[in-house]
């Protein structure tokens, strides 16, 4: 074989050797019983047609390449945003391994999370014992300040009652009676990770504000001037939360970030392992009930949460992942209105810089067509930013978007001349997107790492914005919110545009007459 102990080839090179190529060709010719190349080509081309697209969009049962994840993932996201909090997923342990690896691949940080490791007998007799043992073990082994319980499908299917289970566990002494255990039912067969975020966040707030599952009196609200801030499920949470804090500090606003993941997913390498780091202080969560208002950056991540908060007398405000100039303007002005603090000159300068940068480069984005997919709020924010830049977000797709999202997108398209040819696709998957990219091609695709297959198949350059980003590192450390964040987004988009331009002009002696130094 081509492999040689003196010079071991890695996977990039190994199978390119003549022996392997020959072996694969023989295998294919003699044993694989494949369709003739011409037939394969015919079908491939057919899959690019309008006719195929119609069949593709008529799909009722099958989902191919969905752009969403499950509820407990969102619940784990919420849990690690609180001081010393251990996410505890009631259900099978395999699911939990997924959440941990999913987050770790994106954030390049460990994500601590345990499960109650339900097995077949638990599924038959109920998971109570697993909850009782699980809480006891987790409490004694990992010494958390709080445990946030959510569920996998398994527990939901058999109908385990978290509230009752936790109560029983406390009675049996798994954890002290006054120890904070929040809970949320998060079945993966309903909604997506953004629903899970909503449920878990609601669970935490409800726990602290509404009497800790009936064990203490409900909190009485004494309104102060403070503002609560909830970020929503956000792949850029490390950079974003820090940026939002900086902005609030600049404005001298009193605030509480409810769910602050910026430290736990960005711990320093200094010899100390931090199982928990940063996060919203539990006292602060309780005191947040007294705030004047609560802001959510992502409406579709926090629908139930905000309802709960509103019922406590807060003014609530929901944005749709606001990015860019107008998006940030809107955000800051609302913060200014709610807090009574003016927007400082420094932020106004940053605004001017972003406007300046857009003006400098507008010609390269203006009139370009984009396809976007991702979470409902993110796609909305990005589409609004593109319209602001004079680009056309022609296809906007959210597998976890609903009709309300689609209507909101349509209203956005209608508000701009650049939105005339744009359409929102709620509940569709990336295989639908594939058809769209063939029948109505665009210049660029915006999406997460999974978009790279679409990039390969359709030749549409992929701009990586979203969650998860697995094949590029550290994007989550840069904010996309605020004017600085808008600048980061602009640069990300422009980089791809110029890279594409270079890639199309870099054949020496053929196309490199346009391979320019200055773009």
């Amino acid at each position, binding site marked *: 074989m081509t492999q040689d102990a003196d010079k071991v080839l890695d996977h990039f090179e190994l199978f390119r050797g003549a022996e392997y190529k020959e072996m694969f060709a023989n295998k294919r010719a003699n044993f694989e019983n494949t369709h003739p190349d011409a037939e394969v080509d015919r079908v491939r081309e057919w899959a690019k047609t309008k006719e195929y697209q119609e069949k593709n969009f008529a799909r009722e049962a099958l989902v191919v390449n969905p752009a969403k994840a499950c509820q407990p993932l969102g619940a784990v996201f919420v849990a690690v945003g609180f001081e010393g909090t251990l996410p505890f997923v009631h259900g099978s342990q395999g699911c939990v391994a997924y959440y941990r690896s999913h987050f770790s691949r994106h954030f390049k940080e460990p994500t601590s999370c345990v499960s109650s490791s339900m097995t077949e007998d638990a599924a038959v007799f109920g998971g109570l014992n697993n909850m009782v043992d699980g809480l006891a073990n987790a409490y004694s082994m990992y010494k958390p300040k709080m445990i946030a319980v959510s569920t996998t499908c398994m527990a939901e299917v058999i109908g385990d009652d978290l509230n009752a289970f936790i109560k029983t566990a406390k009675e049996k002494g798994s954890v002290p009676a006054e120890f904070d255990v929040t809970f949320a039912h998060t079945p993966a067969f309903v909604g997506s990770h953004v629903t899970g975020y909503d449920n878990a966040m609601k669970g935490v707030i409800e726990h602290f504000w509404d009497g800790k599952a009936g064990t203490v009196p409900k909190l009485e609200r004494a309104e102060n001037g403070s503002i609560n801030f909830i970020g929503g499920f956000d792949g850029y949470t490390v950079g974003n939360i820090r940026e939002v804090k900086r902005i609030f500090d600049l404005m001298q606003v009193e605030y509480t970030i409810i769910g602050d993941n910026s430290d736990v997913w960005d711990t320093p390498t200094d010899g100390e392992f931090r199982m928990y780091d940063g996060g919203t202080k539990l006292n602060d969560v309780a005191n947040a009930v007294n705030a004047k208002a609560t802001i959510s950056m992502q409406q579709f991540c926090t629908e139930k949460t905000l309802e709960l908060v509103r019922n406590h007398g807060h003014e609530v405000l929901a944005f749709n992942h606001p990015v860019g100039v107008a998006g940030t303007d809107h955000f800051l002005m609302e913060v200014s209105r709610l807090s009574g603090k003016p*927007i400082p000159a420094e932020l106004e300068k940053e605004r001017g810089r972003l406007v300046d940068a857009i003006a400098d480069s507008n010609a390269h984005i203006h009139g370009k067509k984009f396809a976007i997919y991702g979470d409902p709020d993110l796609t909305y924010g990005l589409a609004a930013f593109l319209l602001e830049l004079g680009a056309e977000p022609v296809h906007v797709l959210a597998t976890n978007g609903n009709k309300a999202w689609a209507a909101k997108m349509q209203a956005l398209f209608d508000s701009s001349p650049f939105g005339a040819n744009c359409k929102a696709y709620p509940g569709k998957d990336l295989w639908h997107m594939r058809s769209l990219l063939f029948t109505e091609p665009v210049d660029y695709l915006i999406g997460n790492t999974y978009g790279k297959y679409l990039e390969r198949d359709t030749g549409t350059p992929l701009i990586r914005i979203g969650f998860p980003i697995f094949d590029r590192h550290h994007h989550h450390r840069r904010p996309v919110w605020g004017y600085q964040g808008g600048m980061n987004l602009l640069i990300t988009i422009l980089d791809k545009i110029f890279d594409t331009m270079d890639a199309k002009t870099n054949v020496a002696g053929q196309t490199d007459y346009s391979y320019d130094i*200055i773009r």
Partner: protein
Amino acid sequence: MTSLNAKIQEVFNEPACGVNHNKTEKERKKGCTKQLQPGGAAGGCAFDGAKIALQPFTDVAHLVHGPIACEGNSWDNRGSKSSGSALWRMSFTTDMNETDIVFGGEKRLYKAIKEIGEKYDPAAIFVYQTCVPAMIGDDINAVCKAAAKKFGRPVIPVNSPGFVGQKNLGNKLAGEALLDHVIGTAEPEYTTPYDINIIGEYNLSGELWQVKPLLDELGIRILSCISGDGKYLEAAYSHRAKAAMMVCSRAMINVASKMEKRYNIPFFEGSFYGIGDTSDSLREISRLLISRGAPDKLMFHTEALVAREEQKAFAAIEQFKVQLAGKRVLLITGGVKSWSVVAALQEAGLEIVGTSVKKSTKEDKERIKQIMGEDAHMIDDMTPREMYKMLREARADIMLSGGRSQFVALKAAMPWLDINQERHHAYMGYVGMVDLVRQIEKSLYNPIWEQVRQPAPWDVNGESWQKKAQAAPAALPLAAE
């Protein structure tokens, strides 16, 4: 240096130059170079002028003799395009260091020439003099002569160190280098009655290629283009052309006029910017070729082509008229001739509120008057501050200018379109003008301009940065050109 001084005097004494006609003997002696104001923002130097004029020759190795600054800052900074060799884009410099300056850089230069020849085998090597070796007395003429003899390949000295003057002077000195060392040193394989030279055309964004098909259709051969997409050999045998078109009037007029004197090649000043001007230039090329013996029917063909292309272009521009009617344009051009763009913009329904005539000749100004009327707002030498003021007061909706004025427009929150050398769109010829109008339309209607002009929405009246900027003119931005 005396020979360089003589050369500069000679260049100043250009009889074909429109400006020179109107000067007294004394003024003419003084030369064209306006003394620069120390501390004022200034444009490029003579080295830069020489380099940009010759760099578009594609199969030539352009070797800059000097410290890293000169080539380091100018490497591949022009949008010229090549249909063949990419050698012109390689950055060659002697990168002189302290020791060279103490002991002289001639040996290093000689070695550099030798190495380029061995590694790249170029058609020729152009050696550019810069300030430092000129001051320490490196004789690049002698080194080039010796190297050419030793290595058997053309090594052309371009003696235009930065300190002798401004960019425009460098353009002309580059032309002198061609006249002295290149033109007339080779013979073409064959000639035709339809051979022309195009002088002072740099094929920026490949725009010559938008005009070439028209010439091809008429059977007219570009024997040599100086210097856009040019080859060394083409320049060497360019003296066999029957006629010449002088594109950028001030840059290389000495080349055109001296070739007329030496080789009887009649030339005219023309432009491929604008629809009418493209047509006029095609007619003029045909007229000159017929005067040199081409058959009369060439004019007939030319008229047919002009009629067809004009109709096509106007039809294409028509679709933008609704969007563009009444929009006001401020035109600040460098090399691109103002009047030729003016006519094209008026065609699209745009109103020209002012045009710069900084580099325009008296004839240019006359033409602008013809096109824009007697009250044409001609700006001789607009400072960035005036430009800013004009834009800020919204007396214009868009500014067309070179890259260096871009920021004046942007800071005044005004749409801006690049029509100088760093632009990415080709505006030459009929299709080019349609594209220019398209780009203006795009630029005007980009949503960012509305954003740019609006103060931050939380601003109370009187506190926006725009208001502050207007209140404090001293803080206005400054930019070169």
